[in-house]
């Protein structure tokens, strides 16, 4: 198709706007780092307490000796385990609650209470019941994600069009067929937004769990750094955490794009 000059102009404008926004985004980051470094150098802020970009970079170099990849590996493993377990178990529970209205009504008040309970309060109980270690951390992550998963996935199921259910029933469909043919495929977009929320929550749970019990992992490094006043270590670990969380979010976003392409 031949584009008119007007359309070309429109596209150029659109692209310029995009570049401008990206440039500003990077600019803000650079400005922030620059000011931080500058203030630390001229002594407006104390770089022992506030750290500074250059000290963090130096810390990255030294992290190799701290077995940083072991720490990253452990945290990522805990996070992925928590994320996967809570998504799978939560979805299965949501299916059960969709299936049985009675069960749904019975469990409703419990879900409401558990949802509003700050799960960190269960920390001591978890440690005593499952032991202080990776198990406790994964349990914490699962507890934080699973209630939200159940509630959101179930709401997705229940928002399916009554008319479509009626249509399937009139064809003689049983409950299982309604689940497979309508409810599950219909809920995929909602399910993906649940995944996105869970990525964030799984990180919250994992780091919280590590604060409580761990002997290794990024959460452990942050706590340890805080206790021995090595703020460079705290900052460097936080930066790594930022990168990892972003990567995991992007992974989900890629899955979403794939599915959307298939479904349009």
């Amino acid at each position, binding site marked *: 198709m031949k584009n008119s000059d007007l359309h070309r102009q429109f596209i150029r404008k659109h692209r310029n706007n995009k570049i401008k926004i990206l440039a500003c985004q990077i600019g803000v980051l650079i400005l922030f780092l620059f000011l931080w470094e500058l203030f630390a150098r001229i002594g407006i802020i104390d770089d022992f307490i506030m750290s500074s970009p250059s000290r963090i970079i130096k810390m990255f170099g030294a992290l190799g000796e701290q077995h940083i990849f072991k720490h990253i590996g452990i945290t990522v493993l805990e996070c992925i385990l928590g994320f996967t377990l809570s998504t799978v178990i939560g979805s299965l529970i949501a299916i059960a609650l969709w299936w049985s209205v009675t069960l749904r009504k019975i469990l409703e008040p419990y879900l409401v209470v558990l949802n509003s309970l700050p799960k960190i309060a269960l920390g001591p109980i978890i440690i005593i019941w499952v032991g202080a270690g990776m198990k406790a951390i994964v349990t914490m992550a699962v507890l934080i994600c699973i209630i939200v998963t159940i509630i959101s996935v179930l709401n997705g199921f229940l928002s399916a*069009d009554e*008319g*479509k259910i*009626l*249509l*399937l*029933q*009139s*064809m*003689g*469909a049983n409950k299982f*067929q309604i689940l497979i*043919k*309508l409810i599950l*495929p*219909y809920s*995929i977009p909602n399910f993906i937004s649940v995944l996105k929320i869970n990525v964030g929550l799984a990180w919250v749970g994992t780091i919280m769990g590590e604060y409580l019990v761990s002997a290794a992992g990024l959460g452990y490094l942050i706590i340890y750094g805080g206790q021995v006043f090595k703020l460079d270590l705290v900052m460097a670990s936080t930066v790594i955490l930022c990168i990892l969380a972003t990567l995991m979010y992007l992974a989900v976003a890629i899955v979403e794009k794939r599915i959307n392409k298939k*479904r*349009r």
Partner: protein
Amino acid sequence: MEKLKMKDVSLTYQSLSGETKALEDITFSVSDGEFIAIVGPSGCGKTTILSLVSGLIAPSEGEIFINGEPVRKPNGKVGYMLQRDQLFEWRTIESNVILGLEICKKATRENKEYARELLEKYGLGDFKKSFPNELSGGMRQRAALIRTLSFRPEILLLDEAFSALDFQTRLAVCDDVYDIIKKEKKTALLVTHDISEAVSMADKIIVLSQRPAKIKNIYTPDLPVVSPLKRREEPTFSKWFDIIWKEVSK
């Protein structure tokens, strides 16, 4: 041959605030290939009759027979067409059309081939691989009709099937659907609040009263069996419209 028979059917809905009698002593029968329209004031329980025929709800009293066999539960003998087309957005037109076959576990190669033939025959062959959102409202409604035809139901139930369409499209889709139903020699039960739609399509018109709905009258307009659009041009069309309208609002 008698395709559908409703015998002394009554229905009472139960709710915490009390009982609501929706239908009272509904008796009528539909013979093979007939096109019946049910009209009545809104909220009188027209749709309830379709739910009863499809077996989705059971009557409080009386019985319903399809081909002489009593209806107890949904069994794939009826093809339900709803107000909105209810095509599944994530399925292609082709796969939407065979939905009923999959549900009835009749998705054999011949049956699927039959569904594809229907698509070809009624001008949707080029859209087999398209998704519903790529089709116009009229084409979507036609796809919905083919979906109900593909598993060869005994009776088609049309529940305000055209009322979600704009007027222009609605006239065309009415014509289209009527044409297909007649070509496939299907028996159809149409529920509508649009009297002109009923008069233009039906062989027989059943007029229901206010709730609890009873049959006030059954009319057999002496209009020629032609397409709905042609019927609207008949000189006696407005006479019949008038008769039915007065009966409904009486």
